[in-house]
Each structure stands twice: as C-alpha cells, then as structure tokens.
C-alpha cells in the first residue's frame, strides 16, 4: 500500500464516479437504475463465491434472493419493524442456504446444478402457488423504506447512497474473502478436491461455509431489491432470474472481483435498453447466453481481450503479405 499504483488510482476514480452518480445523472429514474446495478452486483458477487471460487454452479440462487425479500416483506406486512424484519430475512435466508447446501453438496458439478435448480423451483412453487402465505402472483408490497440513523431513504438519490454503502461493504467482504485462507482453501477445493482432502481439509465444510457466505450476501441483495422496488413477486425466484444472475457472473468473468460487477452493469443496462425497444427480453437473454458460451466461454472481459488479440495478430500476419503486392507493379 506504499506506492500508488494504477489499480489504486482506478479504484479511487471509480469511487469518486460512483459516489457522484446522482449529481451527474440527474434524472431520478436513471439513479434508480444505478441502484439496481449495484444491488444486482451484490447478488452477482454472492453467486460468484460459489461459481467462481468454489466451482459450484448454482441455478437456485434466485430462490435465496426471494426468500430474503419475501420474509422481510411479509414480516413488514405483519407489522414488525424494519430492524426485526431485516434480521428475520437474513436468518431465514441463512437457514434456507444451509438446507440448500446440505442437499446440493451431496454432489458437485452437474449434479449440484440440477439439485439447486430443483430446490429453486420449490421456492418458486411456494412463492407462486402458496397464495395463503405469499399472496401468489400478486406479490407482496411494502409501504415504507427504512430510515437508518434518522435518514429518509424515500428519494432515489438517498436510496442510491444507501445501496452504494452496502455495495462497498460487500466488495470489501469479497476482497477480504478472496485474500483470506478461507478463500484460498475454497479455491483449493475447486481445483484439487482430492488433494485438499489428503491435506486434511474438510472439503465439505469449506463448501458448506462458502454456501452460507454466499447466502448471506444473497439475502442482503434480496433486501435491497425489496426496498428498492417496495414490491416482490414470484418472478424474482423463477429460473430465468437464476439464469440472469448466473449470466452476470459468467459474462463478466468468474473468480474475479470486478467481473460480476461489470456483468451486473451489462445485464441490467441491457435489460433496460432492450425493454425500451422490444418486449422480448428472454429472447435477448437467451441469445446472449448462447453467444457468450459459444464464442467467449471465459467471460466478456477476458473474451474481448482474446478476440482483440487474435484480430490484431491476424491483421499483422496479413500486412506483410500486402506490401509486396503493393510494391510489385512498378
């Protein structure tokens, strides 16, 4: 930390940029979009713990996100205060994550993906069908946002700042996690599970704790979503939602800090832009998925770098061939 390096400068610049968004964006609608980018970035960072560092691809994370939002929403509707509702939501999500983890960690790879998908569908089924509890397709709406330390969050800029603070906490937690022995051991279980076992690590426990860590930040993102929209409906728990957040992680580049954030920004902005012109967001989502997986399986950022490098090499390889033809006639 003694020398100021380019990454430090970039980070400071980004921080300045992020903290002044409401000033230069102006329109509160776009400030709201910025809040959503940040909250989905928290969600994507949470999923990246499992997908990127753990090598465990979950297609049920929208379920965890929804458990958090629904628990808080229903508790608020039942008359509890914000603090109690938030604590209840985090607790409920952690419990659900633990159940998810116990079941899904019976397997890894494809099995893990299938089990999380099925579990996510159960939660969708509850959100959509158990109308007595969740109000079914009509969803749950809440009337107020919390006012931490007496500051009202009802306006778009103030909510943006609150989201930014939470986002920075999430980022710091992820950075600390990435550097910690725990993060290293999780990467170890991803790359060399058998060797980790031989070294005496409890691979299952490491993965289980990683799942809880991921679940915690999912619940934070779910709460932010609930308070942002002041409404939650079964759609947030659908398979499409799980696929969307997975796309954020994959498109930005897994197992990096910035990848999921870039991915969240790309997906959210694209969703808003596309929705403004066509109603077929799912179609676009599918096409992006297929294109990324077929052409840039390593993610948009590294993939673009690779394709750019490839194009440049081809260009260089072509150029010398042109010189003789250009000089030949005279």
């Amino acid at each position, binding site marked *: 930390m003694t020398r100021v390096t380019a990454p430090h400068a970039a980070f400071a610049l980004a921080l300045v940029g992020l903290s002044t968004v409401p000033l230069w964006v102006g329109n509160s609608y776009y400030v709201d979009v910025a809040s959503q980018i940040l909250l989905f970035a928290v969600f994507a960072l949470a999923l990246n713990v499992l997908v990127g560092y753990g090598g465990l691809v979950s297609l049920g994370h929208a379920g965890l996100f929804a458990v958090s939002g629904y628990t808080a929403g229903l508790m608020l509707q039942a008359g509890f205060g914000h603090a109690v509702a938030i604590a209840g939501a985090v607790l409920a999500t952690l419990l659900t994550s633990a159940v998810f983890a116990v079941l899904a960690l019976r397997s890894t790879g494809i*099995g893990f993906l299938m089990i999380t998908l099925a579990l996510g*569908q*159960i939660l969708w*089924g509850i959100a959509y069908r158990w109308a007595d509890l969740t109000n079914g397709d009509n969803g749950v709406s809440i009337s107020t946002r919390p006012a931490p330390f007496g500051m009202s969050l009802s306006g778009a800029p103030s909510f943006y700042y609150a989201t930014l603070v939470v986002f920075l906490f999430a980022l710091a937690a992820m950075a600390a996690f990435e550097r910690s022995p725990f993060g290293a051991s999780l990467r170890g279980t991803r790359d060399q599970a058998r060797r980790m076992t031989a070294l005496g690590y409890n691979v299952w426990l490491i993965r289980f704790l990683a799942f809880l860590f991921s679940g915690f930040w999912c619940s934070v993102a779910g709460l932010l979503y609930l308070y942002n929209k002041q409404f939650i409906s079964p759609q947030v728990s659908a398979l*499409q939602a799980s696929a969307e957040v*997975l796309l954020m992680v994959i498109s930005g580049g897994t197992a990096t800090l910035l990848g999921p954030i870039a991915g969240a920004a790309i997906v959210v902005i694209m969703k808003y832009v596309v929705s403004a012109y066509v109603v077929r967001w799912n*179609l676009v989502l599918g096409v992006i998925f*297929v294109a990324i997986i077929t052409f840039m399986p390593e993610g948009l950022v590294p993939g673009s770098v690779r394709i750019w490098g490839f194009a440049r090499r081809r260009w260089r390889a072509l150029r010398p061939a042109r010189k003789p033809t250009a000089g030949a006639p005279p």
Partner: protein
Amino acid sequence: MFPPPLATASGGGSLGTLDHGSLYHVSKEPPQMTLWLTLAVNSIAFGGLLFLLSAGFSLIFGLMRIPNLMHGSFFMLGAYFGVTLLAVGANFWVAALASGLAMAIIGGGVERLLLRRLAGQELAQVLLTLGLSFIVSDLCLIIWTGDPWQPLAPAELRGVVRAGGMIFPLYRLAVVVIAVAVAAALWVMVDWTRLGAMIRAGVDDAPIARVVGIRVSRLFTLVFALGAALAAFAGVVGAPILSVYPGLDADMLPLALIVVILGGSGSLLGALVGSFMIGFLYNFGQARFPDLAYVILFLPMLLVLVLRPQGLFGKGGS
C-alpha cells in the same frame, strides 16, 4: 405458468373426455370411490406422459452427462408443431409423428452444430441448452401468441369406457397404452439390440466404448434426436389433456428433472417408476393440497437425494 391440473380440486369431475373443450368443466360430484379411481386413472395417464418426456431426458443425461435444459422446450415446441398441423386438418397421429420427426431433426442439429463444439465442457453445454430454451420459449410466444391451444383428442378416442358402473375416459387409457408400448419398445431397443448394447456401453464407460470401436459421438446425436422426438411426441399426445401454452416448457422441465433424480440417470426403469410416482403425487397432491402440490412433488426427490443420491435405479458412483 402452471399445467392445468388433470383433475381439478373441484372433484375430478373435470375428467372431461366427454367434453374436451373445457378442462375445468364441473360435472356432478361423483361418489368418493369414483373420485379416487378417477384420480388414479389421471395419475397413470400423466405418469405415462412424463415417461415419454423423461425417458429421453434420462438417456441423454446418462449417455452424455448433459442435463438437457431444453428438454421442456422440445416438449412445448413439439406440442405447438402438433397443434398447428392439427389446425390445418392433419390426422392426430400423423401430426404427433411428424412433430416428433421434426424435433428429431432440430434436436440432432442442436447437438451436431452447437453442443458438439463444446464437447467435454459439461457446464457450458448446460448453459447453452438453458439459453436455447429461453430463445425457444420467446419464439413460441411470438409465433403462437399467449393464448393456450387445446386440440381435441382423436375422434376415435373421445368416448368413455364403462366398466363396473364406472366411467373411464378412453383417451387417457390410450395415453397409458402408448406410454407402455413406447417403454416396451425402448426396453427392447436398449436391452436386446446391437444399438442398445452400444448405448449401454456408452452410458457405462464412454472412453472404453470408443476404444472398442463404438462411435460414441454418433450415438450422442442419435440419442439426442431420439430424446427430442419422444419429448415432441409426448407434447402432442399430451396436448388434449394439458393444452399448450407459454410456460409449458418451464413446467415440464422440472418434472423431468425430478423423475430422473428419483429414478437415476440413464435408467429406463427408473424413469418409468419415477414418472408414475410423480404422476400420482401430482394428481393426488393437486386434489388434496392444491396450494402445496408443486412442493410435495419435490419431497421424494429430497428423500432420494439424502438416502440414495444416485437415484432409485441408478448405478453408484459418478
């Protein structure tokens, strides 16, 4: 979003073969015994449909290790093809077979052109099929609109069978017969033919199968096409019961997933047993606990995962 229940909570009066236009048609409340029997027949019919859907899913998963997340799309797209053919006056069975054939070509194409490029990258393959399923569902919404289509059952099967003072809808019985016939045919193919032996070899150990000269990659395409065809055929056969609507794919895919987790991947017997279990659970759950029917479906899956992760009839390991 959700398949119209085969028997609604209004008491199985929606048996509905007499009046195929309205699934939710409420007739006189039948006696309790008949209600259960009706539910049982519906369960078996739904189980038969599920088997047609999940047999291919199971074989694809067993052989290629890909949970084909566009299997529900095959089902829905096939059903849409079928109802379109029916709308222009095709014979029901011709429509079902033609739709199956069309989907075999599409499925084979997807495998050859897209999945093949990602050989060995299971995760990328899964995500690719997921992306394709989103594309298919939105395309279907554009082409066939959001209104549900519900074709009539073929004319010769619209009646009912009376036995012992009770009434059984003929079409549902026919669905069961078809499913059993397909199960038998698949069983003969897998267990008694050379092709089946090669598929089994591929499921058990693909690299070794390659070493002894089996063209596993060609088998992949074949099995994928067969699975797609079966799903499409099931979609058309199921259309008079379930109707065809946007979101049918997302409704059927998890069911196929549960069946395969229950029965064990690559096992036809597992798919058969799992399908009927889910068929019963779904219909009885729908009748008794309509709110939680969908959740109840997953309970046996969770039990199996905890007690026997490889599935009831699956082989150990993997």
